[in-house]
Every structure is written in C-alpha cells, then in structure tokens.
C-alpha cells in the first residue's frame, strides 16, 4: 500500500422500508489495499457494497473515488470508472457461453462489426488462466457449470474490466479450499498490481490471511476499522456479535455399533446422467453424517438422487431395512425424508410469498382437510418455528425476499423441521451465513440428532464437517472414496481423499 486513498465513503446512510440498513458509514480504502468487511447477516455489508457499485444510490453521504466526488447511477457507470462488483447472488446469463458472459455488454468486434469470437475466446482463456483455471472451456454454456465454476467466471468477468477497485460479496463462500487458496493468491497479485480489493467474507481465517484492513459493521453502523496487524480473531468476532463469542461448538458425539439397524441404507447407487458410481453407505438413528469432497464431486447430485429429484439407473435405497422406490420428492417426503437444498434463491425460496407460506409449504398437506387449508393451524405452527429458530422478521406475512440470508436459510430449515422428518438432508446449510447464525444452525442440527433424527449434510467447510459430524464420507468424482470416523479425521486427511491423493 502506498498510502494514497483510492476510494472514500463519507456518512453513507441508506434506509429501506422498515429498516435502516446503513447509518452514516465512513470508510477509506487505499490504493492496492485488500480491505475486508465483516459483520453478521443484516449488518449492512451487502447494502454498502451495492451502493459502492452503483446498484442503488445512498440516501445521503458522499462517495469520493480517486479524489473526485462521484454519483453512481448504475453498475455500468461504476464499472466504467473502474469499480467492479461480484455479487453474492451470481448474475450470469445461463444460456450464454462463458466467454459471452465475460464480455457481456462489450463483446469484441472485428473490422466488419461482427462479433469476434476468436479474439474473445483467446482473451477469455487468458483471463481464466490469470485465475489459474484451465478446466473451463470458453464455449461452455454457463448453465451447465457448477456454482463454484460460475463464481470463477464471475470473477474473471470482473477482472476483465481493468478494475481499479474490485468489490467482492462473499467470493469464497461456495469455493473449495483449493479454489479459495487460488482466489486469495489472485487477490494478492491484484494488490501487487495496484488494484484495491474490498471484500465481504464470513470466513475469518481468510480475512486474516489476506487483508490489510478489517472493518466491522453491526446493525448498519461501522463499529471499528483497523489494520489487520492490530486485530485479533476474538476481538473481531466479539465486535461483530457485540458480545464475547463462544468459539468452539462441541456436541456429544454419538457412538454406534455395527449391529444397529440402519435408518437409511444405500446400496450400489449409480446414475450415469449425474455421474454417480456405485455408492453405498449406511446411516443410523440420531447420527450426523457429513458428506464432503470437492465441489463437483457429486455430493449435491447424490442428495438429490436420494430425494427422488433425479432418476437412478441402478442400486437400492432401503429405509428401515425395506427397499423403497423414490421416484419423486413427494415419495421421499412420504418416507420421512427432508432436503434443505443448496442455493436458497434457486431451489429453496418462494420469493414473492410470505414467511409463513414459505415455512409451511412442505407441511401443508397435513394441515388441510379435504384440500382446505387450516389457516389458523398454519399461523400457529409457523409462529412456533419462527420463535424457536429465532427467525428475525417484522411479521409472518412479510414477503420472504425482504429477509436477510441467514433468516431465509432458517426459514427453509423451519419448513423441513415442521414436517418432522426422520431423515434430513442438508446441502451446504451454512453457506453465506454469518457466525452467529452458523452456530445457531449447528445447535439446531445437534438438537435434532439428539431427538433421534438422522442428518446427512454436505459441506465444503472442513472445520464445520469436523465440528458436527459423527462420521464423514468423502466423495471424489462421483464415488465415496473413504469413510472416516470423526476422531480419526483431520483436515489434511480429508483433503487427501477428496483430491484422491492417497
């Protein structure tokens, strides 16, 4: 950092209907500085980022970029100035190719004015190579990429704007460890070339690993901005939550004997379409089983196949020792299985519907008589879960799209708890959720297991896997390559199996 200020925010305030999202936030970002913004969900981080990248204007306050007052009308203007943003919810066009997405809005043209695909392909390969990715061909349709690959494309797109300031909203939340390391390396090289990086992250390890300055937001206010060298993890965490944080979540792990009857048993499950090969495992009552591996190793596909969303070619699924055919999620639900999917907006939420309707959705058939809904029962039952899971909402009839990410996630979890399943699948349950909500979710999951529910959860975060799981299944390229007992596992061990380096 050479000490000059690249971007300065003064007294930024933003009010949404019913919520003061930001109140008089002032902040300075130096040239070539990596600046981390941390805070719980709803602290105002995303709002700040959106203002900075021109998505919406602040109600009051100034943005001074490179010494000049700027009024950002839209993201395009911000990009033109050199402020590029990578959103938490990716904004790529699924039917277009990778390179078209990277150059969207400014496709390269040849002398005749036609789109110059050759040139774009080359530039796209170069910018992906900057990120150290050779595995994504520029002609692939974005819709066929995994979430993490899309994230990388989004980053490549932002980098290709010759950004002076790169704003990243949780860039690593869906990346694997190796991909995260790569991204952090990219951030460092950007810094070396004088680009300022402003990023939101819930992963404090990487915040401390890479950033120069750390700013803590809480309830829309800037609590503290400090150099990384002055900060400690415990201090940052307690500033975020406003109280001392109980760091380690410990649960009473469960021992099981091989003589026990499994609640769920999978034998030789194979799906050519979803690239799953000969998957077998057992799950016992009250057990928390982790399913981990690199993104793209087939974890999500396995959960969704078990849930009846995708057809399987061969293999058997046994529930309580009885072989069952699960051809539709409806069948899975009838057998007492629930699935909290990854990607809240894509697969979980009914955005235009109320919090109440979102929570009750899977349980409605049991709350209706002759197809008529028992609305009083619905209201009461949902209220219970809103209270129990501490879902922060102004009311049951609030549309769910106005809730913060953590509360949306809790609403989806509530949807499945209300159904009282015996087997619960969770796909990246704490993805993009702050530390406070995360430990709440851990507690909820632990409580469910205590009551006898069997939980199978997919996670890329190894500390989370090690904290929660009784047993760990590691996947690689569509197969389960290893089953590890919790006490025999550590991060390196899991990574070795996940990358198949045994």
């Amino acid at each position: 950092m050479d000490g000059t200020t690249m971007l300065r925010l003064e007294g930024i305030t933003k009010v949404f209907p019913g919520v003061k999202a930001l109140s008089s936030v002032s902040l300075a970002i130096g040239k070539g500085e990596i600046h981390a913004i941390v805070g719980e969900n709803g602290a105002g981080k995303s709002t700040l980022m959106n203002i900075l990248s021109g998505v919406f204007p602040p109600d009051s306050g100034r943005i001074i970029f490179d010494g000049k007052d700027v009024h950002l009308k839209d993201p395009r203007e911000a990009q033109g100035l050199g402020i590029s943003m990578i959103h938490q919810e990716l904004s790529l066009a699924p039917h277009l190719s990778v390179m078209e997405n990277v150059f969207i809005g400014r496709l390269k043209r040849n002398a005749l004015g036609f789109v110059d695909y050759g040139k774009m392909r080359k530039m796209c390969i170069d910018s992906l190579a900057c990120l150290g990715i050779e595995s994504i061909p520029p002609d692939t349709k974005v819709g066929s990429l995994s979430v993490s690959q899309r994230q990388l494309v989004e980053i490549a797109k932002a980098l290709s704007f010759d950004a002076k300031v790169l704003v990243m909203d949780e860039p690593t939340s869906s990346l694997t460890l190796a991909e995260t390391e790569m991204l952090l390396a990219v951030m460092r090289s950007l810094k070396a070339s004088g680009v300022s990086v402003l990023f939101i992250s819930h992963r404090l390890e990487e915040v401390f690993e890479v950033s120069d300055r750390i700013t803590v937001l809480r309830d829309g206010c800037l609590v503290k901005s400090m150099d990384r060298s002055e900060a400690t993890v415990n201090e940052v965490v307690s500033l975020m939550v406003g109280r001392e944080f109980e760091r380690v979540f410990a649960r009473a792990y469960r021992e099981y004997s091989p003589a026990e009857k499994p609640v769920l048993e999978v034998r030789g499950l194979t799906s050519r379409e979803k690239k799953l090969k000969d998957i077998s495992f057992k799950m016992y009552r009250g057990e928390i089983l982790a399913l981990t591996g690199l993104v793209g190793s087939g974890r999500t596909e396995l959960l969704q196949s078990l849930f009846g969303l995708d057809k399987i070619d061969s293999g058997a699924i046994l529930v309580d020792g009885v072989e069952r055919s699960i051809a539709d999620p409806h069948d899975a639900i009838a057998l007492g299985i629930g699935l909290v999917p990854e990607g809240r907006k894509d697969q979980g939420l009914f955005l235009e519907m109320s919090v109440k309707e979102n929570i009750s959705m899977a349980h409605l058939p049991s709350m209706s008589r002759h197809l008529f809904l028992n609305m009083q029962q619905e209201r009461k039952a949902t209220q219970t879960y809103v209270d129990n899971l501490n879902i922060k909402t102004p009311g049951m009839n609030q549309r769910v799209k106005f809730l913060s990410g953590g509360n949306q996630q809790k609403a989806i979890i509530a949807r499945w708890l209300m159904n009282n399943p015996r087997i619960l699948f969770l796909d990246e349950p704490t993805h993009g959720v702050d530390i406070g909500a995360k430990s709440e979710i851990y507690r909820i999951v632990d409580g469910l297991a205590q009551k006898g529910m069997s939980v199978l959860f997919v996670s890329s975060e190894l500390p989370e896997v090690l904290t929660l799981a009784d047993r760990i299944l590691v996947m690689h390229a569509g197969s389960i390559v290893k089953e590890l007992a919790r006490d025999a596992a550590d991060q390196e061990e899991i990574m070795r199996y996940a990358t198949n380096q045994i």
Partner: protein
Amino acid sequence: MSDTSSIDKRAAVPGSTIRTLIRATTARKEFSVFVALLVLSIIVSLMSPYFLTVENIFNVLRQFSIIGILAVGEALIIITGGIDLSVGSLVGLSGILTGLFAGAGIPTLPLFFLVIIAGCLLGSVNGLLVTRIGINPFIATLGMLSIARGGALLITGGLPISVDNKINFLGDGYLGPVPVSAVIMFIVAIVGHIFATRTLPGRNVFAVGNNERAAKLSGIRVKSTKMMVFMIMGGLCALSGIILSGTLSSAEPTAGTGYELDVIAAVVMGGASLSGGIGSIIGVIFGAALMGVLRNGFVLMGVSAYWQVVAIGVVIIAAVSLDSLSSKKAGS
C-alpha cells in the same frame, strides 16, 4: 390520493389499526386497478347520466361476465407461470358442442355437464402438451387456438347452429333484474378466490409460479398442478361457450374470436405478473370490470368502435406501466 392520507391522519389519533388496515389495502395489488375502475366509472357517469342507471349497470355486468369468468381461469394459469391463448377458440368450440348436443335432443342437465366435461378434456390436452411433451405453453395453446377454431368451422361448415334448449337461460336469463351470466361470474369469482387463497391446490399454484424447483423439492406435484389449471380453464371456457350461445340462442363457429386478448389484459390489469407467482382473483375481476366499463362508456358517449379498440390497448399499457413503475419505486 389526498383523501387517503387525511383519513390516515385522523385514524392515527385513536389507534394505528385503521392506519395499518389502510396501508395493507393500498399495498395490495388489486388496489390500483380498483382505483382505476372507480375513477373511470366517475368520469363516465359524469359524461353520461345513463351510466349509473340500474339497467345499464346490469348491462355492463352482463357484457363483461364472460371475460370475467375466463379471466379467473387465465389468472390461475398465469400465476403458475403459464399462459393460455386458446380460450377464445375453446369458447367457440364449446358453443358449437352445445348446439350439436342440444340438437341431438340431450336434456338440459346432462347437456350442461357433457359440454363442461368436453371443455375440461380440451383444456387437458393443453395441459398434456405442456407437462408431458414439454412444449412452451405459449406455443402449445397457440396451436390449440388454431385447431379448436378450425374444428368449430369444420363441424358447422362455417354456419351458425341455432340452439333451442332451456340451457339458453344461462346466457339470456334474468333473476329479477340481475342477468344470470353476471350471477355465474360472481359465483366463479368467489369460488376462484376461495380456491386460490384457502385451499391446498390453490396455494400450490402460487408456489409453482414462484419457484418451480423449490415447489418440486417441497413435494408439490408440479405437473399435476399445471395440468389442473389448464383443465379448470377448459371447463370455464365451456361454461362461457354455453353462456355465449345462450345469449343469442345460436352457436357461431367464430364466437369468442379474440377473447384471449381481453382475458389476458384483464388478468394483467388485475395485478398478476406474466412471469408467474403473483396475482389475485379479486384483482382480475376488477380488471375485467374496467374493460367492461370502458367499452360501455365509449358506447354511451357515441365514440367510434374503432377508437374503442385503440383506447383499450392504451389502457392496458397504461395500467401495466403504472404498476411496474410503482413497484420499481417500492423496490429501490
């Protein structure tokens, strides 16, 4: 809306309940179309004293009752994220079937159910094309639009069939001063509203339109839900066909031509989103009423029929623009 805010202030003194009620009412999607209907009615009644006579009001009701009935079904389809362009043709074909069956001497009650079932079956064909073969609903129902109209013309050789049966009462009958078709529309609207807001399949309609994948993951049978709304639409087309042929005691093979546009316009003006997930039955009835009053107003003022066509287009665009602008404002 200056009077709304003054009510607001007065209500704030005794308590906030009325205030919240007002806010909840004005925030509803139906509110803007209701205000538009009110304003338009006031303008028309000022221009023509005849507008507010009992006779004329029932006349207006009778005129838009078919569009209202069809709009209820179309709203359900649009809320699931689909669309049905074949409604006008299905109305025409159902009318022809009514004439044929009546001509074959089938008594009134079996005749009624026979035509309704035929309509449901025709609607199911749309549903099957969309859910089983996976054709985009716009295309599937566009095909059906042509097939059903062609069918009606083939059956009749292009000539009208006279209908001589008590079933015509549904189209030309009155209960006291009230046209039977208007009564039917209100029944359809009330049943439709209850269906949409208080039943399980109704809730599923909204869920499917909001997020199809999440709906599937929540155990909702997405295909059956879509199938159901197309079937309901077919049944309502049949009901409308019976009413329409009853009005004239004659089934015309070209009856109902162009209805799909009025119906979709009513649904959209009533606050439904063409991208699915949003809409209300009360809103679409207001939307249908708005178009009815507009048409009637033009007749009363003696404006050329050609101008009516233009004006209706303008009103549709204006209503939807206002709505889209106000929701943009609320969003930012």
